[in-house]
């Protein structure tokens, strides 16, 4: 009889440790949508460049700025969607969205991401744009791995794959566009779907 009590104690300890230090309300659906936005955004970028009369992208002002705007919009809409769906999910589960665990998650996610983003902007300013897709994938992967310590749902593995893709992309910059589409589009959809069926369907 005693043993059962101790077992209950241990499982309660584990549960409290998880609940108090990890943010668990990330919505899987927002991952799927982020992937779809990335695919649409990539299609728009592809169309822009294909219709520019050149087969490649150069820093010549208009087209390039439109592609940057396109990228920015993908990121912005993805973030807004994630915030909205996560808030909704947290409300349903009766937990706070903005608490110590979500603050830590976001902070640790943003540190590598902002560092990487600034780095990419700096080297773009120096006309070095061959590695942009690779750098985006690598820094995004690092951000995911850093954030994974504060969340459940194994975003760590998504991070590993993004980094590997980024490194492949660095070796074959010619395929940068397609690897970007795979990393930010297809992977998000696959991962989001896995999380959605594992955690959200309950």
């Amino acid at each position, binding site marked *: 009889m*005693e*043993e059962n009590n*101790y*077992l209950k*104690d*241990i499982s*309660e*300890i*584990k549960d*409290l*440790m998880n*609940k*108090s*230090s990890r943010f668990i309300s990330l919505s899987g659906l927002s991952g799927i949508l982020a992937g779809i936005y990335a695919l649409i955004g990539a299609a728009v970028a592809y169309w822009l460049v294909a219709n520019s009369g050149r087969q490649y992208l150069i820093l010549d002002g208009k087209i390039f700025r439109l592609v940057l705007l396109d990228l920015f919009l993908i990121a912005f809409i993805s973030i807004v969607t994630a915030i909205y769906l996560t808030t909704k999910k947290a409300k349903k589960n009766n937990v*706070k969205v903005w*608490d*110590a665990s979500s603050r830590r998650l976001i902070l640790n996610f943003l540190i590598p991401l902002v560092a990487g983003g600034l780095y990419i902007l700096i080297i773009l300013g120096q006309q070095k744009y061959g590695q942009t897709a690779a750098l985006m994938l690598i820094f995004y992967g690092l951000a995911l791995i850093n954030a994974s310590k504060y969340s459940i749902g194994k975003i760590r593995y998504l991070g590993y794959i993004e980094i590997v893709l980024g490194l492949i992309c660095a070796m074959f910059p010619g395929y940068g566009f397609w690897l970007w589409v795979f990393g930010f589009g297809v992977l998000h959809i696959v991962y989001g779907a896995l999380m959605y069926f594992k955690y959200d369907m309950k």
Partner: protein
Amino acid sequence: MSIITNINKVFDHRIRLGIMSILMVNEYADFNTLKELLGVTDGNLANHTKSLEQAQYIIIEKQFIGRKPNTRYSTTKLGKAEFKKHINALEKLINK
């Protein structure tokens, strides 16, 4: 016999065990966070934190955030070590 001696009487309560579990994985936690996570009343939580403080397993810091009083809790080195011993003892009891 040695297993039994490692079971710590101070931790032999659900809520105290809960407080320690939360503080083990967080640098600190404030009163309301503990209250919400554990689902206990103010008085109950205050009692248990006091006894953990008396055993010198946790530190209670009172401060003001703006005008609001805020109490936050963190574990001591002793508290961490004792908690680990306690958990090991529990595990041994279960695996016996």
